[in-house]
């Protein structure tokens, strides 16, 4: 029996650059995903640098200029102005900020909670733990989102923060369900059983063995969800439950602009296109992410 005597030289670190390159290759196989990625990059860039790149940054706040109100799209105001004389292009740029923040906040709250509960419920299938978690999930799923948000808003004051809470409340169960499905099917895989007989702790099995196998579906869902959350938030703002004036919010802008259709169409149409733009971007990017993270069984 050969006894290893050679001291191992530090083996080369994994090719992280190689993995990124391969990831990009898979992602870019679908040209639409690349379009999505470009769109999102653009939107993030705009949102981040809004104060510096918008033509009239002060229009994002309390600003009135009735002389310039309701101008159609033209040279000085690319998207025109609204009834208060505020530049719509600027307000759309700032509106992106709000939308993205809402998406990020909601998903940062709901994904971890939903995923963790799903892992626990799936792994502990056929025990009271699973029953408890999944029935609570069922309750939340059964309530229509908008109604829940309206109810929450009725109790609390309508503002961005509260509407984000409302959206979060009805969002986490979907992560839970998805991960529950994956975890319960993986529970009987040999590598999980191997970890069990080795004596690994439940925490290890949940987060180190099962969770990495959920990355694909979870991150795909995150990408698609960004679009949905933004849409839902816009809907809430549309009914007056989201951002309050004068904060530029895409949904609110569409709502306000709706009153002036079809003569001053630009007040509602441009924010609406902006919403479509960002949601579309996240949707198609989600396909590419799914392809990139798919587990090869070899």
């Amino acid at each position, binding site marked *: 029996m050969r006894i*290893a005597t050679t001291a*191992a030289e530090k083996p080369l*670190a*994994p090719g992280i650059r190689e993995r990124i390159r391969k990831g990009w290759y898979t992602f870019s196989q679908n040209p639409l995903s690349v379009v999505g990625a470009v769109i999102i990059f653009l939107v993030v860039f705009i949102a981040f640098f809004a104060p510096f790149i918008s033509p009239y940054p002060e229009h994002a706040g309390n600003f009135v200029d009735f002389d310039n109100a309701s101008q159609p799209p033209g040279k000085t105001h690319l998207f025109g102005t609204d009834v208060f004389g505020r530049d719509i292009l600027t307000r759309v740029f700032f509106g992106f900020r709000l939308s993205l923040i809402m998406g990020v906040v909601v998903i940062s709250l709901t994904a971890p909670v939903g995923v963790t509960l799903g892992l626990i419920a799936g792994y502990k299938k056929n025990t009271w733990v699973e029953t408890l978690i999944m029935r609570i999930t069922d309750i939340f799923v059964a309530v229509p989102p908008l109604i829940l948000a309206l109810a929450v808003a009725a109790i609390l004051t309508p503002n961005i923060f509260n509407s984000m809470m409302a959206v979060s409340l009805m969002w986490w169960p979907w992560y839970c369900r998805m991960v529950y499905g994956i975890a319960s099917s993986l529970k009987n895989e040999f590598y999980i059983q191997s*970890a069990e*007989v080795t004596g690994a702790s439940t925490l290890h099995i949940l987060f180190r063995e099962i969770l*990495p196998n959920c990355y694909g579906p979870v991150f795909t869902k995150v990408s698609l969800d960004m679009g949905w959350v933004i849409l839902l938030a816009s809907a809430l703002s549309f009914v007056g439950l989201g951002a309050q004036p004068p904060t530029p919010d895409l949904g609110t802008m569409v709502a306000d602009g709706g009153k002036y259709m079809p003569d001053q169409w630009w007040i509602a149409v441009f924010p609406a296109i902006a919403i479509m733009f960002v949601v579309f971007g996240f949707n198609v990017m989600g396909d590419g992410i799914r392809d990139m993270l798919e587990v090869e069984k*070899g």
Partner: protein
Amino acid sequence: MERTILRAHNLKKYFHTKRGVVRAADGVSFTINEQETLGLVGESGSGKSTVAYTVMGLYPSTSGELSFKDRDITDSTKKRSKTLKQDIQIVFQDPGSSLNPRRTIRQILELPLQVHNTVPKKERVDRITKLLEMVELPVDFMYKSPPAIGGGERQMIAIARAMATNPSFVILDEPTSALDVSVQAKIINKLIELQKGLNLTYMFITHDLSLMRNMASRVAIMYLGKICEIAPTSEFFRNPLHPYTQMLLSSIPVVSEQEESLKPKKIVSTGEIPSPVDVPPGCSFHLRCPRRMEICSRIDPVMVTPSKNHQVRCHLFPGAQK
């Protein structure tokens, strides 16, 4: 003097499902001595994997005795001691799913070291390197993931993982069934080498009788949860007594005339293998047995010992009617 390391007596494992009671293992008795290899042969539904997993602790047994190094191990792993977990290891059948595709080889091999803390943290990479060298794999495999390497190599990793805790008893559940012949040869030779070098005892499960002929010191053949015949290898192949054994042996495809002459006369198998939910009454094999008698459909035979160390469970042999 050979000591018995594992002893099973009338071991039973039943599963209660919606369709009925699955008698996966139905009164299995055997012993394994140190540094020996017991081969367990059988087709689907025979219960060989169930026996292995019960010994491993993946399930608690339903009834019967099971002892390892004279200590009772009828509990499942949840209740077993850490030393026991280190001492009994298993290599699973399908290399595709016995390694987590989302982890690196290093993480996979590090887990047993982490859990049992046999090696301090800074020495772990070293130990992993030695494990990789032991199975003759390049050291830079540490940073790869299972899908990036071939089936044979994955199985080598599974073997390395089993050896990581210095066990004394290793269960090998069809370790090469999914692999090509040339890769299988490498793995089997490595297993034999490791057995000698590390003084291991093996429980080797396979449906490939030719492989068993070259690997096991004793062979037990199972059918629908019961052992039909058990004997030392050369005796088992030279003089198969049970009709099922003869049927199996006559069905295996071989590659030379010489081997053909060693096979028993051709017994054509008929009928489907029944499911362990639906075990026929009397001798579980009687529906497919070419030599069945009237008594076989009524009474289940018991194990008898027609010759030294050679046990068989069949009414063809006197004493089985108890």
